[in-house]
């Protein structure tokens, strides 16, 4: 019954197969929608078809008469008990934010907003009856275009009087972290290089595979909510804070959760509605959204215009970078809201030694779906901007884009390095990652091939794209969050429970939704306590079991949650030492702990940690004054962010006659610090890459002129398939983080952050010879072709999603014919 002393070599670094997989590959899963409770009722939402309208009347009588309908509830009918959906990060003290009621009460501000809820005995009956709810609207002009909205031409929320929510500014000369960027720009204008560009970050949809689902059971003393969420602890807090129900009466469980990517980092109207109606009716209720509802009503991501000014010496040494952002919040300020672009503020200087920097971001309300975190959250936008414009600088100087990066990046011997934003990068080695990536890519050979094909005037041209990215991960030091006016901290909690049989329960406040915490965290604890990987159970995602936590986002689980785990495990060892000394009849000073065994120095006597756990359980023979428990917990607040980095290289084949694109090769060499499980890391990188590549080439949430989301189903929103993508070449260089015990940096977002500019740089590189210096994302064949034809940016590309069902097109995503949403394409 005890653990052995014959554990194999270290678990950390092993490509352990995942503990999670057995249930997932056999269908023995607990997705929220799988839950059925006795007497459970089902909700269906009536959603506004209009982007902006006053609700003049709602007639629920026909719906109420429909079979098995229990209740039909309007915003007016639930106004007093529904609570509000919160914004946790008011980025400025004067930020303007409309009240976000879960069900609209008298006015709707985006197409898809809930206006009424039907409760019935089955989901089908609820949906049938929802069709019978008759809502009269008085349509209002809608603020749709981000730039026009920023000029207050049409007001998204009339009572606010403006669409401008907040203006957030960082200036290195004001912060004392660098010089004045205007001086640098002035000098570059007369005696250097000045590059001015405007880039578009199109609107994206996270599109997790499991749509959002919530079950609320009000039976018993506590109200239990199961939700497909990344953030059960935050949901619990916010429910308590906005409904007046005591936090101790609310239990939130995130069971198996089918992906999130930031899209489930939210407190949602649907959760709040389900909570209110379960309480009112005294019955369990369930709501599972359809995919079409998910695409229109779950928060979107990105959606920025970026005005950039890069100042440099004639030799390409950057002297200043100025960034002016417009960020579309959509209809409401979401939980992170304006904090998303602010997270990017510190990353536009990336891996470079810029002497001066200024960032300003105007967040803007519009009558479109609200936006919030999507994989990378602020950092992909920043990385895209800087990595695109560094290529432009290289062209101006007339050198290889890697050369211009090397001229400006922080050298490996200069770490730790304090950036122009005031962040201290603890470790990194950009030279090493770049050298390895070039070697894997065959950089020089591909450049030679490119040159030859250009000279020959080949119909299909080769483009090479580079992205030398970094990111700030491990969200986040609480005092930093406090200084940025975020409403909560950034710590994480863990506990380690030593069971009587020698098995170990690990409880983490991080809440996995596909990442593999159960496996990776088991590896960490196995090494730390010297127990078998199989003897460890990782528990998470239930506020009653993991009573304390701040959940999973921002590549924080390992860097912050893992460190909490290490500290809790170390406390177990410290608690066990005096007990081991007592049982071994030795002095505590002579006890050594190694590989799961407490030994007496200079002897062969010792006990396994599991044996001590059993002895503590019995508690027959404890030293005086020592409590009979080894269980320990730790709450860790990070002292700094971590800074993964890497060099990504992409080769694209561009058919200059048709604009068709084909990815030929993609190499990623990431430095993510020490690696716990290389198999899981590879999966994170691959999946991240495809999400970033998808932004570059395929995805866009498109609205028509009346504010209807036309890419509102998987027929129209182009998620890449296996046939659209390639296999990747990935590797790692390692410079361990110095700010956490395990030396880890985080990897959840790296691929997404790095890949988008690598791909677009490659596409532009292939056609730059035709006078092209930008192609707006997604780089559809149509846009590429137009760019080649006009030597411009590919024409006005606002709102043009990829027409992926073009007759005879080779990019067909799915087989059945459909109508492509090409509104505004190439106008």
């Amino acid at each position, binding site marked *: 019954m005890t653990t052995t002393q014959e554990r194999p070599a270290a678990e950390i670094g092993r490509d352990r*197969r*995942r503990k*999670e*997989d*057995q*249930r*997932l*590959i*056999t*269908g*023995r*899963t607990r*997705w929220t*929608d*799988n839950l*059925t409770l006795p007497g459970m009722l089902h909700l269906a939402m009536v959603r506004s078809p209009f982007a902006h309208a006053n609700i003049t009347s709602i007639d629920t009588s026909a719906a109420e008469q429909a079979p098995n309908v229990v209740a039909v509830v309007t915003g007016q009918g639930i106004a007093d008990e529904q609570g509000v959906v919160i914004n946790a990060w008011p980025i400025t003290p004067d930020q303007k934010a409309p009240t976000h009621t879960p069900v609209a009460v008298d006015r709707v501000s985006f197409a898809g907003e809930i206006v009424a809820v039907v409760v019935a005995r089955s989901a*089908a009956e609820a949906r049938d009856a929802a069709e019978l709810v008759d809502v009269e609207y008085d349509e209002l002009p809608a603020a749709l275009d981000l730039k026009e909205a920023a000029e207050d031409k049409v007001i998204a929320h009339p009572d606010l009087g403006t669409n401008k929510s907040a203006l957030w500014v960082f200036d290195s000369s004001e912060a004392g972290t660098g010089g004045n960027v205007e001086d640098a720009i002035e000098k570059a204008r007369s005696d250097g290089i000045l590059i001015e560009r405007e880039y578009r970050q199109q609107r994206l949809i996270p*599109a*997790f*595979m*499991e*749509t959002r689902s919530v079950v609320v059971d009000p039976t018993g003393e506590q109200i239990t909510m199961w939700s497909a969420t990344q953030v059960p602890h935050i949901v619990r807090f916010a429910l308590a804070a906005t409904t007046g129900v005591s936090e101790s009466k609310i239990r939130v469980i995130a069971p*198996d*959760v*089918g*992906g999130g*990517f930031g899209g489930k980092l939210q407190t949602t109207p649907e959760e709040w509605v389900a909570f209110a109606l379960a309480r009112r009716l005294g019955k369990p209720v369930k709501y599972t959204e*359809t*995919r*079409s509802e998910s695409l229109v009503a779950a928060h979107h991501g990105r959606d920025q215009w970026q005005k950039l000014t890069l100042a440099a010496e004639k030799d390409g040494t950057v002297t200043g970078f100025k960034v002016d952002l417009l960020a579309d919040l959509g209809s409401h300020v979401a939980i992170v809201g304006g904090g998303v672009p602010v997270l990017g503020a510190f990353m536009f200087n990336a891996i470079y030694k810029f002497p001066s920097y200024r960032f300003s971001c105007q967040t803007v309300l519009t009558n479109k779906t609200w936006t919030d975190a999507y994989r990378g959250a602020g950092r992909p936008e920043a990385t895209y901007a800087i990595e695109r414009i560094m290529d432009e600088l290289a062209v101006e100087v007339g050198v290889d884009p890697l050369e211009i990066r090397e001229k400006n990046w922080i050298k490996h011997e200069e770490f730790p390095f304090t950036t122009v934003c005031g962040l201290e990068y603890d470790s990194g080695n950009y030279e090493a990652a770049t050298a390895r990536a070039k070697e894997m890519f065959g950089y020089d050979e591909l450049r030679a091939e490119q040159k030859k094909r250009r000279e020959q005037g080949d119909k299909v041209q080769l483009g090479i794209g580079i992205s030398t990215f970094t990111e700030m991960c491990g969200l986040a030091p609480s005092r930093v969050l406090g200084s940025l006016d975020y409403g909560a901290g950034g710590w994480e909690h863990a506990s380690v429970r030593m069971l009587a049989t020698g098995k170990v329960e690990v409880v983490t406040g991080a809440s996995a*939704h*596909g990442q*593999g915490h159960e496996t990776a965290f088991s590896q960490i604890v196995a090494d730390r306590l010297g127990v078998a990987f199989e003897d460890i159970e990782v528990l998470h995602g239930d506020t009653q079991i993991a009573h304390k936590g701040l959940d999973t986002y921002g590549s924080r689980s390992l860097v912050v949650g893992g460190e909490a785990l290490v500290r809790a495990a170390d406390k177990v060892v410290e608690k066990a030492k005096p007990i081991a000394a007592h049982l071994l009849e030795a002095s505590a000073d002579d006890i050594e702990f190694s590989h799961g065994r407490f030994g007496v120095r200079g002897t062969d006597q010792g006990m396994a940690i599991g044996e001590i756990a059993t002895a503590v359980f019995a508690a027959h023979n404890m030293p005086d004054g020592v409590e009979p428990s080894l269980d320990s917990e730790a709450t860790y607040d990070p002292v700094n962010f971590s800074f993964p980095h890497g060099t990504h290289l992409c080769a694209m084949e561009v058919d200059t006659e048709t604009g068709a694109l084909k990815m030929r090769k993609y190499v990623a060499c990431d430095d993510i610090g020490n690696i716990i499980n290389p*198999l*899981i890391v*590879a*999966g994170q990188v*691959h*999946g*991240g*890459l*495809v*999400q970033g590549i998808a932004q570059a080439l395929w995805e866009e949430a498109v609205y028509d002129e009346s504010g209807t989301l036309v890419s509102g*189903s*998987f*027929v129209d929103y182009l*998620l*890449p*398939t*296996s*046939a*659209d*993508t390639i*296999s*990747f070449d990935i590797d790692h260089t390692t410079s361990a983080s110095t700010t956490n015990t395990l030396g880890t940096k985080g990897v959840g977002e790296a*691929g997404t952050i790095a890949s988008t500019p690598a791909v677009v740089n490659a596409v532009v590189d292939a056609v730059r010879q035709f006078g092209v210096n930008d192609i707006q994302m997604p780089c559809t064949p149509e846009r590429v072709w137009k760019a080649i034809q006009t030597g411009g940016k590919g024409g006005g590309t606002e709102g043009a999603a990829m027409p992926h069902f073009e007759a005879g097109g080779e990019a067909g*995503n*799915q*087989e*059945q014919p459909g109508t492509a949403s090409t509104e505004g394409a190439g106008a």
Partner: protein
Amino acid sequence: MTRISLTVDGAKVSDDVEPRMLLVQYLREKLGKTGTVIGCDTSNCGACTVHLDGTSVKSCNVLAVQADGGEVTTIEGLAQDGKLHAVQEAFRECHGLQCGFCTPGMIMQSVDLLKENPNPTEEEIRLGLEGNLCRCTGYHNIVKAVQYAAGHGADS
């Protein structure tokens, strides 16, 4: 209501169903076969893929009444006598899943693909799975898993 009788994962079942009920709804709501999941409402994602009379179908694209008299195998019926199917084993071995939501459909489609083509090229695998969406893996390790399964007797 229409009476249907069919075999699901080896068990004979019989129910009265609404004519509009989809096979996937029947599996999930009537039989509790929640291993098969719904990922979209336009037949694009393939998460609900099962085998009907030995061939993969998107069970959101089949009415329950169409399965009358048929034999359905879901992800829950793939392992035999407690032994994982070679494709299930391969997905675990190659880390071909993360959140696991697309996995039931992806595995069922992969089994069918390998039945028709026991030694597919990478391109054939990619084309054969293009009706199944995954948001986590970037498909890289799913392709590897199918290759691995092909080399470990998945077609047998």
